């Protein structure tokens, strides 16, 4: 075996601890990447399987096919699978009907060619359809075509999932997200693992210089280091692949067992394919390559003379290590030395700081992502937190509400009204062409019930006495606007009324004369009350007192009784039994809500796992760097001790160093994290105009705490080890 390869192997064996840490780092990175690709393939497969379960494993259903035609269809070269159900025909004339019709379900081999196949089966000229150049639109038009021979149903969702030309935005988003996450993993891992290689090199400068001085070429040195990386990869990547795959398998089986399929809206099955493994391998190799190439190049540039003299480290000039008067005054001589140490080994400590900074940035960004996902979920679906909803007439529902068994509830009443003075107060956005086009003269007067009303105004920071005769206007609407190919969500206000303005409205009633009412706007709310979903009209929220004084209020008012209960099933049964007949409808919201929540929780769990593992990669490498730096500085410490620095002063010096670099990484990391968080906000805002920026305060606080604790712990560990040394032995070793 080549001497250099042998050297590489021996070097790895020599520094077992560091080699193992590097291997662990790469295993973690590979596992993470594999985890991401596996989740994506599992997700896609799950969606397909779910659709097959829900709708059926077919692309097209042809209705009413006579028996002799079936074989013709089956023989079509583009038909992959076919199954047939017979339609229950009523017998005509009591005779056996030989003309039984069948429903034929087929799956295509090649979805791209399906128009032609369908044309053949339906005896239809598809030229016009093909000319549309949009297979999706063509299919939709096909459904309305009266000239086709048979009726059909199209299983659009399955076609979409299996790649039939529909834009699968969920799939796109999943790939896009996965790609970003993998890039982040790669960048962070490379930065951390790079350090391991760098450290091993700085310890071996002598060796490298010696090799060069006896005639090793630059290329040979470079190859040696790359060979080390190759050996590490040989061990780490397979293990990482297995761990990543296994990890997802375990997580998915646990999810399948304890959270039933209903919670997700679909069964999340584990699935693997060659492509996902290949992609994982490629990215993992990229991690190793980029981690080691920098070191390899640096090592190849080492001049033999540098190694002999070993002065590389001390390229100082006066300005680099100028004391800061400030630091000296506050922290004393220990602080001064600590500060100088930081400034001189900018590169060594620099990489530690960057590792920590990157973890901080990742953490803040991911937390922001979670915040926005939550917020959007809230906007789209409302912050539903009730379990059972009963619909009906206000008076009747009040009876239920007063029942002793019903404790936690909100009795909402909504009355349609006509806004009389809307002219001139409608915003531009509410006039945009779009799918939901509310007419501004419709408005709903809402009474929330005493309990909920006081909760609501408290949330808005209002005082009951101040607002009881006024109204709170909530006129934010969510609509989709078509912008070319994509749809965009827009959160906008319908009216431009301000606080203090007056609204004039009338209520349709049984009376002949329509009475109009005037009410002052106490506040424009930016959050709607709980239990109210986004709808077509805006809401004027009023107090119960006011509500009861409006005469027409008690007639024909739609009411919704929203109940919070521990056992939705039980409560529902109770109401159904006791109050049967007096309500219009009753719904168990609990279940649907659990589903949605579960999806969010899963996203959060995966993201948290991701953060934890990336942080682990960072931490193991920070551990590496810090302990090695301490080792390399043993002689220096021994020196300090030999001239009389006490243990206390020494500990203080090290502690100060820790604080300096934690502060430095926080000072850099937090602003960058904030910037990325803002960029993320902008990205979400593209689809959700009107979304507000959320400051990631808790993420920042947690980062600060985590950094201080982790670095502090590592340094403490190093100090204890150093304090155990014998001064003179260390100094001696330096000279041997």
């Amino acid at each position: 075996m080549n001497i250099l390869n042998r050297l590489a192997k021996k070097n790895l064996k020599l520094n077992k601890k560091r080699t193992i840490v590097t291997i662990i780092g790469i295993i973690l990175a590979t596992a993470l990447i594999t985890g991401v690709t596996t989740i994506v393939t599992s997700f896609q497969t799950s969606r397909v399987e779910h659709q097959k379960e829900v709708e059926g494993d077919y692309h097209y259903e042809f209705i009413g096919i006579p028996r002799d035609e079936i074989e013709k269809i089956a023989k079509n070269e583009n038909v992959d699978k076919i199954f047939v159900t017979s339609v229950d025909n009523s017998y005509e004339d009591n005779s056996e009907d030989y003309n039984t019709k069948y429903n034929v379900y087929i799956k295509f081999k090649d979805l791209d060619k399906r128009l032609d196949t369908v044309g053949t089966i339906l005896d239809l000229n598809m030229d016009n359809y093909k000319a549309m150049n949009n297979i999706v639109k063509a299919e939709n038009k096909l459904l309305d075509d009266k000239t086709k021979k048979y009726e059909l149903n199209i299983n659009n969702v399955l076609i979409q999932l299996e790649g039939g030309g529909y834009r699968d935005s969920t799939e796109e988003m999943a790939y896009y997200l996965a790609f970003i996450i993998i890039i982040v993993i790669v960048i962070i891992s490379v930065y951390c693992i790079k350090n391991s290689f760098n450290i091993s090199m700085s310890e071996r400068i002598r060796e490298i210089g010696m090799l060069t001085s006896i005639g090793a070429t630059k290329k040979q040195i470079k190859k040696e280091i790359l060979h080390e990386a190759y050996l590490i990869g040989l061990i780490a990547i397979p293990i990482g692949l297995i761990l990543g795959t296994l990890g997802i398998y375990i997580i998915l089986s646990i999810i399948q067992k304890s959270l039933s399929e209903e919670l997700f809206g679909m069964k999340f099955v584990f699935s693997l394919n060659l492509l996902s493994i290949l992609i994982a391998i490629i990215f993992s190799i990229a991690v190793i390559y980029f981690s080691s190439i920098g070191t390899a190049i640096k090592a190849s540039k080492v001049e033999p003379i540098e190694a002999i003299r070993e002065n590389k480290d001390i390229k100082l000039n006066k300005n680099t290590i100028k004391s800061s008067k400030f630091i000296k005054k506050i922290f004393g001589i220990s602080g001064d030395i600590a500060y100088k140490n930081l400034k001189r080994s900018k590169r060594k400590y620099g990489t530690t700081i960057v590792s920590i900074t990157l973890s901080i940035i990742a953490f803040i960004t991911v937390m922001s992502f979670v915040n926005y996902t939550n917020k959007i979920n809230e906007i789209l679906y409302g912050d539903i937190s009730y379990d059972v909803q009963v619909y009906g007439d206000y008076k009747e529902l009040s009876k239920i509400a007063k029942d002793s068994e019903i404790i936690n509830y909100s009795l909402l009443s909504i009355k349609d009204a006509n806004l009389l003075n809307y002219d001139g107060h409608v915003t531009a956005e509410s006039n945009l062409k779009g799918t939901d086009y509310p007419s501004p003269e419709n408005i709903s007067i809402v009474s929330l019930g005493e309990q909920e009303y006081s909760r609501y105004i408290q949330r808005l920071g209002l005082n009951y006495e101040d607002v009881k005769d006024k109204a709170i206007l909530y006129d934010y609407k969510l609509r989709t606007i078509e912008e070319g190919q994509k749809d965009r969500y827009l959160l906008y206000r319908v009216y431009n009324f301000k606080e203090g303005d007056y609204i004039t409205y009338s209520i349709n009633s049984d009376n002949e004369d329509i009475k109009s009412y005037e009410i002052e706007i106490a506040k424009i709310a930016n959050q709607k009350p709980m239990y109210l979903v986004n709808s077509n009209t805006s809401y004027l929220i009023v107090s119960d007192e006011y509500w009861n004084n409006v005469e027409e209020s008690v007639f024909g008012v739609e009411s919704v009784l929203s109940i919070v209960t521990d056992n939705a099933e039980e409560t529902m049964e109770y109401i159904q039994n006791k109050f049967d007949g007096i309500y219009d409808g009753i719904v168990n919201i609990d279940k649907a809500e659990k589903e949605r929540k579960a999806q969010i929780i899963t996203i959060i769990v995966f993201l948290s796992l991701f953060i934890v593992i990336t942080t682990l990669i960072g931490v193991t490498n920070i551990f590496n760097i810090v302990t090695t730096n301490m080792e390399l500085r043993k002689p220096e410490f021994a020196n300090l001790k030999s001239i009389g620095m006490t243990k206390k002063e020494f500990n203080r010096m090290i502690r100060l160093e820790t604080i300096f670099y934690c502060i430095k990484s926080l000072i850099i990391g937090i602003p960058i994290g904030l910037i990325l968080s803002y960029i993320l906000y902008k990205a979400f805002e593209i689809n959700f105009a009107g979304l507000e920026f959320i400051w990631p305060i808790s993420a920042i606080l947690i980062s600060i705490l985590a950094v201080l604790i982790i670095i502090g712990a590592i340094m403490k560990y190093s100090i204890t080890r150093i304090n155990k040394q014998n001064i003179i032995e260390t100094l001696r070793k330096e000279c041997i």
Partner: protein
Amino acid sequence: MEILKVENLTKIYGKDENKVIAVDNVSFSINKGDFIAIVGSSGSGKSTLLHLIGGVDKPTSGKVYIEGKDIYALDNDELAIFRRRNIGIIYQFYNLLPILNVVENITLPCELDGKNVDKTKLNELLRTLSLENRKLYLPNELSGGQQQRVAIGRALINNPAIVLADEPTGNLDSKSSEDIVNLLKKANKKYNQTIIMITHDLDIAKEADRIIKIEDGKIV
């Protein structure tokens, strides 16, 4: 036959008021088979001179010809390969790769070249250096004197044009020092090996054929 020619070799460190002229316009030549000692006090520039001759450091100006070749006209890779085949260097400390054993350390230059090791030469060297019984030992299992012997073996394995030794006995006790110098003399006589040795010990210097004195970067 002239094997080494040094022409107006100069090495300057630093700038202006911090300028240090380590080697000041040095010229001399050495014939094949010579055993030269370079002596001088601390800071006289002898190590620097040696490094320049060995192609391990770059001169500020001047030329070095080994076997007629201008070594500083070569590019980095060519120089590395040239060094591998034509120059053997022995230092005062840390000569060996701590993770390779005696044989591996000695054969390192050949291996780098990708050539097969001349087994006969190797065994002969091991005998001459009294290392036969320690073939597979690691450097940390050897005494200082033994380590230096391994270093000499490595320097000699490729039959280089010149062997440069920078204070080879500086770290050794008197007995080991004597052994080392004797070995160098032996190599010089037996293989007609040209050797340039730096030392500050005049007694050791006397063992050489010729002494070159250096003071403040200049030959005196």
